[in-house]
């Protein structure tokens, strides 16, 4: 790994820490496996054949590069109510156009290549809304490996289309009955399964969390988003953007967009946390409403009580419904390089509909949080300014949730 001095892109350190965050807080049984994964990842990073296979799959299977779309009607709509000369130009990074409909597949491709490299013969993953589960089941089908997806029983009930998709793809879906039966509990159960099957099983973690080296390698696989966006905006505008905006649950799409721009001082970076019913009520904004703690293998900001018991998150977006956040985000928050702003369920719901009507793009509810932040911020910036918003996924999966929230019976 290249350790550039004075770069915000050189982390984590050798022990997997981003400042005080990150690390390897796992049971001893898993520790040798985590170290083995790191050794294999380091070797893969040096291997041109690994990179070539990853790039080929992203191009020909995922459909990359994803377009950078100038959202002209959204831009004009916001300018109409802004002061004279205000209203930044909004571009959307179209991760929703990837195979399986979101950024998740980028990471799954990278990790299954690692699994193959390590000689692992079984794949497991956790999922909340089912997007990461579908992406994992997809790559497992492509590589012919048996796959088990752990999903909270509550999520299984409310995400039936994705459950069926995973089954069609050949995955076994385990409904997790412990705890609150959502994403956090699915991750606990995946870890329990992994610890009992370390000899042949590879755990494809879906976000930039978990024990080192997961936050690093997931980030690296997702950085294709920012690398592409950087080249695309230079081609379209001849300069870097003034701002990046992305939604943050665990934060893999966000870090993927942000990371290639971290050292560009002129680029302001905004992460959007799910504020649910508002920060005074039930929400999933770990940075705004949590404090540092240890869960699922890493130290990071967590929603928790004074005794360190983890509290339940809430967001209308199942993909943001997690009481933690990736450790690199906690660090970027603490050093002030990235500003994190909350967006509520209602704001996201309004932006979901607005983008659909103005641009003909149905965004995932996760992505709608970032759109809502852009709607808030763009009118305060001059017309000559440029914002790139990560449209991290498509919203087809969310139409039932949205219909329910709008009181529409399907």
């Amino acid at each position, binding site marked *: 790994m290249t350790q550039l001095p004075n770069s915000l892109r050189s982390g984590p350190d050798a*022990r997997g820490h981003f400042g005080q965050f990150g*690390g*390897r*807080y*796992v*049971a*001893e*049984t*898993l*520790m*040798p*496996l985590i170290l083995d994964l790191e050794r294999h990842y380091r070797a893969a990073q040096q291997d041109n054949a690994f990179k070539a296979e990853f790039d080929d799959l992203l191009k020909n299977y995922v459909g990359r590069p994803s377009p950078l779309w100038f959202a002209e009607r959204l831009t004009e709509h916001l300018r109409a109510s802004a002061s004279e000369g205000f209203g930044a130009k909004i571009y959307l990074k179209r991760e929703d156009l990837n195979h399986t409909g979101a950024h998740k597949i980028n990471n799954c491709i990278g990790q299954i290549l690692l699994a193959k490299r390590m000689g692992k013969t079984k794949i497991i993953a956790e999922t909340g809304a089912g997007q990461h589960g579908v992406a994992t089941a997809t790559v497992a089908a492509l590589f012919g490996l048996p796959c088990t997806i752990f999903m909270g029983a509550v999520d299984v009930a409310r995400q039936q289309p994705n459950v069926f998709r995973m089954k069609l793809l050949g995955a076994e879906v385990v409904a997790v009955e*412990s*705890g609150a039966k959502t994403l*956090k*509990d699915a*991750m*606990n159960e995946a*870890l*329990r399964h992994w*610890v*009992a099957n*370390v*000899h042949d099983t590879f755990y494809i973690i879906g976000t930039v969390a978990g024990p080192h080296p997961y936050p690093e390698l997931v980030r690296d696989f997702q950085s294709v988003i920012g690398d592409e966006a950087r080249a695309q905006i230079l081609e379209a505008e001849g300069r870097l953007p003034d701002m990046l905006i992305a939604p943050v649950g665990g934060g893999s799409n966000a870090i993927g967009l942000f990371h290639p721009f971290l050292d560009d001082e002129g680029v302001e970076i905004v992460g959007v946390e799910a504020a649910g019913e508002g920060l005074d009520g039930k929400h999933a904004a770990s940075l705004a409403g949590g404090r540092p*703690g*240890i*869960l*699922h*293998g890493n130290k990071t900001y*967590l929603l*928790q009580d*004074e*005794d*360190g*018991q*983890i509290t339940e998150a809430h967001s209308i977006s199942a993909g943001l419904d997690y009481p933690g956040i990736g450790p690199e985000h906690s660090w970027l928050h603490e050093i002030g390089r990235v500003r994190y702003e909350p967006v509520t369920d209602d704001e996201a719901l309004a932006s979901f509909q607005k983008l659909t009507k103005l641009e003909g793009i149905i965004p995932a509810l996760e992505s709608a949080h970032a759109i809502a932040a852009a709607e808030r911020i763009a009118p305060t910036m001059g017309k000559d300014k440029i914002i790139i918003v990560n449209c991290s996924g498509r919203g087809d999966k969310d139409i039932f949730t949205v219909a329910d929230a709008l009181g529409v019976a399907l």
Partner: protein
Amino acid sequence: MTRFAATFAKPRPALVAFITAGDGDTAANLDALVAGGADVIELGMPFTDPMADGPAIQAANLRSLAKGTTTADIFDIASAFRQRHPDTPLVLMGYANPMTIRGPEWFAAECAKAGVDGVICVDIPSEEDAELGPALRAAGVDLIRLATPTTDAARLPDVLNGAGGFLYYVSVAGITGQQQAAQASIDEAVARLKAATDLPVAVGFGVRTPEQAAQIARVADGVVVGSAFIDIIAEHGDAAAPHVEAFTRTLADAIHSAKEIAA
């Protein structure tokens, strides 16, 4: 001499008994464990996300938390136990977040004040020792480390560095209360561990019957039993103590006499 040293100096293997704090009538169950012949007590600190535990202990964690058990309650239980049982080693076992959330120094000081002899933290491996180990050692509280079937010879010295009390051998790669390891693999592992450390070696995970416990006790310095007690408490609720004591006695008798029978 520490309570651990005194306990493991006895010429018989020890029964290490685990129950979850705040699940059932904990004070009565602790007394029952001691009365039944348990040599070391592990008191589980409930956590919302017990990812190394099987269904029995998961459920115990949730039952305890649902009753509103706090960290302060757990130290009250520990202090009261120490008053009633001055000689029985007491270990707190749990997860990193509740142990470190107020800072490791706070936790270590509370342990020392309550008369806790040792701490087992499931998700702080030796790589992250700085999170808790130095504070515990400075407060005179032993950090009990876990070795597992995946802990290889290259790694074992790191695991032992800074370890105290006894070494807990997790005999299966898995979660608590599930399958039991093959006895041959336990014999081999205990021999390997004892060659590497002077610490007593206690073996746990999946041990549910006096017969299993006796088999392990032939080679180990201690046998850890947890989920089997939790099942009794789950079944009998606040009236579990007599059942706990009776089961403890059958385990303790089997373990304490294992080496005599073997000889």
